[in-house]
Every structure is written in structure tokens, then in C-alpha cells.
């Protein structure tokens, strides 16, 4: 009977799926802990408070951008404009604070920084919402809309700054936002303010996604847009809001990067699109939408940061950084496929065997 069609509904595929499910729930966190442990043992430099503070500092901005990306990917979309939005928001805020779009010395003749930041964030949300309108109202592909917007925003940033960074001087508000809080004896533990902001944003996002109607609709649309619409959900309105959130959070990331560098430049967001998508996928959110969550993305962000920082401490030539990151991203997507247990040729081989 072994060569009949009678093989049971392939136990292989089922165990593959359950392994995948386990990996997607706890896998990323285990990987992160393992990487931290390795680095902790191998590198003395990594154990220093400064290096740990840096880890949090570097993770904050990209983390906030990736949080926005999580909303979008959960609906089954993608936002490729985020890196341009990071640059654009930073440039806008910097120009408003500096009161000039001419690169130069440390000047601050413009409006108060909190006002400038508010304007930059509103611009981010509005541009995001506009993308949402194009994607839903005109039924355009999100890939194309956000790729186009990426070009436009980068171009505008480049034109209005003439390609140079706009330097600013920190006022009280900016100093508060960029401070590092010292805790414990001798301030041994140093927590950057931006990390606290990031964690607050993650917590709010978790509440929104898991405990509000809007969050439930987000998952429903990613799970099956047709069913969602036929269940009376205003799919278009939800999606417009999703892209607005992504735009807003990318702008928040942009403002934080700008404050840290005290300069708004069109390169501020370089690589952030790829990193944010990678963080979301590494964190276990399905690119097809409907499955995953915000905490996974935070873990994904830290995995990326630990790899980047770890390579420095382990003296991997910095030029090789891109290669390692690329490998991680491809592995993460492979994991996404494996998680669904849906690899046709593999399934077929198992059955034929």
C-alpha cells in the first residue's frame, strides 16, 4: 500500500508547520537572547554601559519607523516611502527651527522646536493619508504609490536644502528630548529619552492593535479584505488611517534622528525602509497581512541593531555589514514562508517519497 495515494495528510508538512508556528511565536526572541549572550561573552566592549546605551539609542528611531511599517504590513500593504519621510520630516523641522534653508553655522532664528516638530509630524501624517487615498480611492498598488512618494520626498528634501544638511541649535525642548537619563549608583544605567519614547509608542500600538476596534479591523483587512468589506467595515477609511499612522511615525523617527544629529539632511533616513520591513518580517509578521504583532517588530529591530553593533565589536570589517544584513533579511523572509508551511515543491517531494 505504500505507493498508493494513501499517505496520510503528510505528517511532515504538519510538523513543519507547527515548528514554524513555534518559531514565529518565540523564535525571534530566542534568537535575540542567543545573540546577546554570545556577544556578552565574546566582547568586553559590548558589556560597557555606553555600548548598551548606544544599542537602545540606535534602536529607538528605526524602531518607531518599523512600528508604523507594522500597521501597514498587517493590512497586507507596504510603505516604501518611510526612509524619505524620515529625511523630509527632519529637513522640514530643521529649516523651521533654523529659520533658514541655507546650510551654515549653528543658528536658531526660527520658531520654537516643539512647534516645528508639530508641523513636521502633521506633514508626515497628511502625506501618509494622501498615499492612503491614492491606494484606496484610485485602487493603486501601494508598492508603486509609496515608491513614487519616496522619490518625491527625497527630491523635495534635496531641492530645498540644496543637498546640504541644515544645522540647528538645540533649545530646551530638544535637549529634553535627546537627554540620557541616568539611573542607579553613579548613573551606571543610562537610558536614552528616545528609547522611552519608542517604548511608549510600542505600548500604545499594542493597545491599539489588540484592544481597539480599529486594531481588529486592521487584522481583518489583512486577513481577508473582501470579507472585511462585506462585513460592513469601511476598509478604505481604515487603510487611509493606517498609511497616515505610518507617515506620522516615520516623521517622528525623522525628527528624532534630526535632533540627535542636530542636522536635517536628505540622507538622514538612508536604509530605513529596508530595515523597517526587515524588522517587521524578522519579528514574525506575515508579508501577506493579517498575522503578527507589534512586539515582534521590536524584537526584530533589536536583532538588526545587535547584528550591526556586534559586527563592530567583533571587528568584522564595516564594509561587510551590508552582506550580513542582506542575509538576515532573506533568511527572515524564508522563515515567513516556512511558517506558513507552504513550499509546493517540498510538499510534493515528501508525498512522492
Amino acid at each position, binding site marked *: 500500500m505504500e*505507493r498508493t*495515494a*494513501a499517505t496520510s495528510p503528510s505528517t511532515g508538512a504538519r510538523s513543519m508547520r507547527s515548528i514554524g508556528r513555534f518559531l514565529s511565536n518565540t523564535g525571534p526572541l530566542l534568537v535575540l537572547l542567543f545573540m546577546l549572550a554570545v556577544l556578552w561573552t565574546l566582547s568586553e566592549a559590548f558589556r560597557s554601559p555606553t555600548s548598551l546605551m548606544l544599542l537602545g539609542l540606535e534602536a529607538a528611531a528605526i524602531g518607531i519607523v518599523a512600528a508604523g511599517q507594522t500597521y501597514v504590513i498587517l493590512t497586507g500593504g507596504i510603505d516604501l516611502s518611510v526612509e524619505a519621510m524620515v529625511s523630509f520630516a527632519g529637513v522640514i523641522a530643521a529649516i523651521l527651527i533654523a529659520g533658514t534653508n541655507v546650510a551654515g553655522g549653528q543658528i536658531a532664528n526660527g520658531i520654537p522646536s516643539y512647534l516645528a516638530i508639530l508641523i513636521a509630524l502633521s506633514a508626515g501624517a497628511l502625506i501618509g493619508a494622501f498615499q492612503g487615498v491614492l491606494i484606496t480611492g484610485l485602487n493603486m498598488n501601494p508598492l508603486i504609490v509609496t515608491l513614487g512618494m519616496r522619490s518625491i520626498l527625497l527630491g523635495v528634501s534635496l531641492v530645498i536644502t540644496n543637498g546640504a544638511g541644515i544645522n540647528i541649535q538645540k533649545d530646551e525642548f530638544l535637549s529634553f528630548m535627546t537627554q540620557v537619563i541616568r539611573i542607579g549608583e553613579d548613573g551606571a544605567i543610562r537610558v536614552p529619552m528616545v528609547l522611552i519614547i519608542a517604548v511608549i509608542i510600542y505600548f500604545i500600538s499594542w493597545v491599539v492593535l489588540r484592544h*481597539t476596534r480599529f486594531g481588529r479591523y486592521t487584522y*481583518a483587512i489583512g*486577513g481577508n479584505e473582501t470579507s472585511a468589506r462585506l462585513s*460592513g467595515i469601511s476598509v478604505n477609511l481604515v487603510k487611509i488611517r493606517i498609511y497616515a499612522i505610518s507617515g506620522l511615525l516615520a516623521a517622528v523617527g525623522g525628527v528624532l534622528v534630526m535632533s540627535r544629529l542636530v542636522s536635517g539632511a536628505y540622507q538622514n533616513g538612508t536604509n530605513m525602509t529596508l530595515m523597517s520591513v526587515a524588522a517587521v518580517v524578522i519579528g514574525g509578521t506575515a508579508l501577506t497581512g493579517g498575522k503578527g504583532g507589534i512586539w515582534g517588530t521590536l524584537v526584530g529591530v533589536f536583532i538588526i541593531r545587535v547584528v550591526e553593533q556586534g559586527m563592530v565589536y567583533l571587528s568584522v570589517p564595516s564594509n561587510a555589514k551590508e552582506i550580513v544584513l542582506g542575509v538576515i533579511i532573506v533568511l527572515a523572509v524564508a522563515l515567513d514562508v516556512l511558517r506558513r508551511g507552504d513550499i509546493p515543491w517540498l510538499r510534493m517531494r515528501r508525498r512522492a517519497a
Partner: protein
Amino acid sequence: MNADNPVVLEMRGIVKRFPGVVALDNVGFDVRRGEVHALLGENGAGKSTLMKILAGVYEADAGEIIFKGRRVSYHTPKQAQVAGITTIHQELNQIPLLTVTENIYLGSEITRGPLVHWRAMHKGARALLERLHLDVDPRVLVGSLGVGQQQMVEVAKALHHRSDIIIMDEPTAALSLREIDDLFAIIRDLRAAGVAIVYISHHLNEAFEIADRLTILRDGRHIATRAAADLTMDELIRLMVGRRLDEQFPKETAPRGRELLRVEGLTQGDRLRNISFSVHAGEVLGIAGLVGAGRTELLRAIFGADPIDAGAVYVDGGRAPIRSPRDAIRHGIVLLPEDRKQQGLIMGMAVRENVTLAVLRTLTRGPLIDRRRERALVGQYIQRIQIKVADPENLVSSLSGGNQQKIVLSKWMATAPRILLFDEPTRGIDVGAKVEIYRLINQFVANGGAVVMVSSELPEVIGMSDRIMVIHEGTVTGFVGRAEATQETLLEYATGHRKDEGHP
């Protein structure tokens, strides 16, 4: 047909289980060369599942397939086709934007070096079409052909692959009477050429006309295989149904109340033309018609899922402007779609999340969803609708078809609707669960609701409706009362051979 023809295919002891349902329970069946073998049974009897196992779409849990003397098992439809088993589906799976030639040769193109040898392919295609007496230029796009001709192109493709067996799944569902005659002529030619045909149909007359032998399945079991000559229609129906009609359709008539829904002059392109009807409280209005007549389109248009060009919907006597499903739900109209998995449910979500999807608005406290109230509501519907699920946190994808349908029903019942638009209420649902769905329909109209029910199953339409509206090519051809409804009458209206004038 010669009864001594050699057996080309034998399926033995086939078992197939889906979550919660045994679709096939130890089913056997054989086909001879040059034979037309009809496979008959009600919806859910297991005909399509059996053929999908043969064609490599599904994998059997047990049993064996012997084809041309060898044990085989195919993992993809492509493998089966190469081996000589072609399926012609109800839904044609051709690529409309490719030409006839390209579709016939898809995946087996003739090449000369690295290039496609168009001349040879067109010539080959033309020869195949000629064999089928089909006057079609192989260079035209398949999408520009009529349904009947498209089907012939599939037959041509089967000939191209030198198929030993052609499985035809409801081949006449979308054909005109003329096209059906053409198809039968070709089936007879193929039979004479030694090709075996497995013919699946709901139309028993057709099966008698064309088949040499008939195999009857019921509830996933093999009931009988007989020569067509040895079987009468009465006997066939008894074998298929296995129980009396009133057990199958536990229809209870509810008192007819005031008018709840009225549709006037609804028009949508060529698909729906000036459709008017009304439904009263306590009434089930059945809608019958052939595939493609506009039944599903009509329900979707009323529900606001697709835009309409003209017409109006009145609820409770008042004009109800419906531009989206949300508007419809607000007016107490809900749609249970034909394709539950794609349009009614979110398969990756839990039972709880699916049941409350349409009423989350009422379950919030401030900005947050009140999980306690949500769980209570879900528990209440699991009991009331009798959904068999161990834990409301289970994914709906793990449930059987009947329970999935009950989830969709629960989702809508939670919105307290007054009008159910029910598209194919029992498609893909096993017999026991069917009866439960029927009882829920009874209950709904007994409580003063109205149901508009579309079904391809004429017995179901006749068994469950108080009145039946028949549509043909987007227009209403007649209304038939429960007492006068027979399959023959409905078919005459549905094929456009009979048409009452002057409908409201």
C-alpha cells in the same frame, strides 16, 4: 458501448476526510474504455472530491487508483493530465487573454530551437478544432469566445494531451440547449474513439441520455453502479436521495406579514435588467436560474457590494439608499455569500473574532473592546446556533463547512437583521448540517424575518421557498408558488423557454 471493453481506470477503497467531515468513505468505482460513466449524487455526496483525488488536486487518506493497469497517484493536476486524465471544470480554467492555440498548447508548446513554432502550433490547433467540428480561428483570444466554445477548447486541449479519460464536471451548467446538443455529439464521437468520459451532472435527464453506466454516491458512500438501461428515473432518485423529501427539507410555513423588502427596476449593465420583486415578513423567496443568470449579482447589488445603474430598494416601505454593505447592514439587510471562505469569513482569525466582526461597535467601552462582553456574546451564539467548536479561540479554518456557515450566520444574527440574502446556503455542507441550516432559516422567518435564497439545487429551492422567482440572463422570467413548483417548470423559466409577461 460494448460492455466487454477493458477497464481503463479503477479506484478502490478511497477515503478522504476534511476537518469535521468524512467526504469519502471507502468509495470504489471503475471506468471502461469508450464508456460514458455518469457520476451522480446530491451536493456534498462526494462526486467532485472523488474526481479531484483522481486528478491530483487532493490526496486520498486511504485507497488506491489503478490506471491502465498500474497503481498511480498524482500530486498535481498537471501530472494527471500528462498521464492522460483531463478534467474540464465547471469554472473553465483557461486564460482569457491568450489565444485558442496558446491555451491548448499551454505548458507543452512546440518549439524550434529557443523559439516557439507558431505555424506548427496553429496547424495542430486547427486540426483539433476540426475534429470537434468547431469553426473557430485558433488565433482569436479565448476570452472572446462564448462559454460553450470555451468548453470545446478545453476538450481540444484534452485531445491534444491524448487523454484516456476526460472528466466533465457539470459541463452543461452554462450551456444553451443548442450547445448541449453539440457537446453530446462530441461526447459520442470521443466515446467511439475509445476515450472514457466521467460525466458529473445534476441533470438526471442528461445523465440518462448520454451515459452508458451510472454510479450513485450519497453522503460520501458508494450506493450503486448500474447500466443506464437497467435503471428507471424513480429508482435513480430514490438511490440518490435515500430519504423522503420532507425529511430532507423540514420546511415550516410561517404567517405572512407585511412587506419588508421591495426591489424596483434594479439594473446593472447587462447582468441585471429591470428586476423588481418584494418579500414579506415570514416569507422565503427562492431565486432560481442557471449559472451566470445573475443570481449572485442580484444579491450583491441589493447588499451594496456592487454598484447599480438604476433601480431602488425599499425597506419597510421606505426608500433605502444603499451604497455599501455598511448601509445595507444599517437597514437590516445582510448577505451570506456563496463563497464563505473568500467572502464571509476571515480564515486566519478566531471564531470569536469572526462572530463579533460586524458588531464590535456595540462591544466597546471607551476606545477599547470589552473582552468580557465579547466572549459572553460569542458564547451565547455558539449555544443558540449550535456551533460545534471546542474553544472560541480556535481558528475558523479548523471548522467544517457547516460550522463555518453557522459562524457567518452568527456574525449576522448579532446585528439583529430582518432580511437575509442567502446565497447557496448549503453548498459544501454535509447532510446533517444542511438540515440544521434549514431549521435556522425556519426560525428566522418564524420570528418575522424575510429570506431571499439563491440556490443551484432545484430541490432545495422547491423544498425551502414559499415563492420562487426565476431569472434568465439578468431578467425575471416568472414567479412560481410553492405548490406549483416542479423542477421542469423552473427549468423552462430558467432556460428562457417560458416567460410570464407583465411583472411588477
